[in-house]
């Protein structure tokens, strides 16, 4: 009995491995392309104030901001009107781009090494990387999902997920004042000089 289930398991793994490897490789390749693109833009831009705008188009192509915003807001998202969802997505996009670009210092090029990507669920791939930046080592995991092409849906730095972090903040905003409160708090964050 045991042997048969073991055989079934081994067989299932063998069957799964083909397409799984293809998708992880595809996701990783897409990520490398995206990272190289953003880094080369960041490398050319010496003015830190203009960096967010400079990298914006490249990030728009490679990040799924709709997915990010929906998950950052949490279960309350379903109670947003279409207009509110659109507005929240626009505000959150600006916030994410700013958060991301604020991590760069002009003239400092990070060195990234990619580690074996894993696929925790169908249509999802996590790519762990090691980053050496200004002499310090960081572990950064990119979470990617397939929606047509592969897109980044979260960045986890030293175990800290950007989306989980916003979820904890926005979920409590929703609970205290609904969609209006979430949008207002996002507006305030965007208006605040970074």
């Amino acid at each position, binding site marked *: 009995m045991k042997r048969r289930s073991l055989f079934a398991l081994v067989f299932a793994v063998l069957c799964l491995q083909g397409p799984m490897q293809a998708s992880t490789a595809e996701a990783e390749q897409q990520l490398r392309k995206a990272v190289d693109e953003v880094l080369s833009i960041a490398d050319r831009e010496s003015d830190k104030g203009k960096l967010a705008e400079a990298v914006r188009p490249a990030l728009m192509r490679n990040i799924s901001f709709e997915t990010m915003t*929906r998950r950052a807001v*949490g279960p309350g998202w379903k109670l947003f009107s279409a207009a509110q969802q659109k507005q929240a997505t626009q505000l959150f996009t600006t916030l994410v781009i700013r958060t991301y670009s604020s991590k760069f210092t002009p003239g400092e090029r990070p060195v990234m090494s990619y580690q074996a990507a894993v696929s925790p669920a169908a249509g999802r791939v996590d790519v762990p990387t090691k980053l050496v930046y200004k002499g310090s080592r960081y572990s950064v995991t990119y979470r990617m999902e397939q929606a047509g092409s592969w897109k980044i849906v979260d960045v986890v730095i030293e175990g*800290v997920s950007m989306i989980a972090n916003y*979820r904890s903040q926005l979920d409590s905003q929703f609970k205290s004042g609904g969609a209006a409160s979430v949008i207002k708090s996002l507006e*305030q964050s965007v208006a605040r000089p970074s």
Partner: protein
Amino acid sequence: MKKPTSLLFALASSVVLLSHCATKPQPEAAAGPKTAATTSEATDELDDYAVVQVSDPLEPLNRATFKLNDGLYSYLFKPVSKTYETVTPRPVRRGLDNAFENIKFPVRFVNSALQGKFDRAGKEVGKFGLNTIAGVGGLFKKSDEIPALADVSAEDTAQTFAEWGLGQGPYVVLPLLGPSTVRDAVGLAGDYALNPANWGFAAQGSVRDLAWIPSLANNIRLMPDQFSRYDESKANAVDPYVSVRSVYYQNRKALEEQ
């Protein structure tokens, strides 16, 4: 000699105390494949960011301390940190960081061993030996050039408590030191006691004999990195207090799992 003994006693008694009032910690908005994707909290089938409330019964007090700390950082400690960065060239700061991290070897070694991670404890010995001898007393981090030694996860006392199954207790914002939990605060005391940079000061306890210098230098050299992390958790936040708390819980959870 009196000081370390009493510190050790305080540490031991708080561990006993903690284990009695241990409550299982609840990680905040955990990101990881283990969390169920199909709870009512999920926004779609791949969403695994279910928000779990952290234990923060002292929130009003914590928020007040958070605000106080923020003021102290801005007006007192950040200027110190900036001055340190201005007067010390980067290679020197790098060397000091490396040396102090190297000296901290007992913290990592003892806690790796206490968690039964003997392989890791062995690697720590290798790192310490290599960096001390080939790295001129730890000024250069030679171990980074060896892949097997470059990413040894640093263990600390709070992680040992977690490994032993001690509950985290409530979230606390400590004056000056910032975010922690009751358990992790006791862990900090353990790290302090195990760090040779503090031994001179802890043993003498007198300001006159200059034994406080390594301990103070260690705290100053840590500032730029700590403030840049703190500022990053605060920047672009909707609620900085919640953001810093979330970053704390997520980061500690990741360290405990390694």
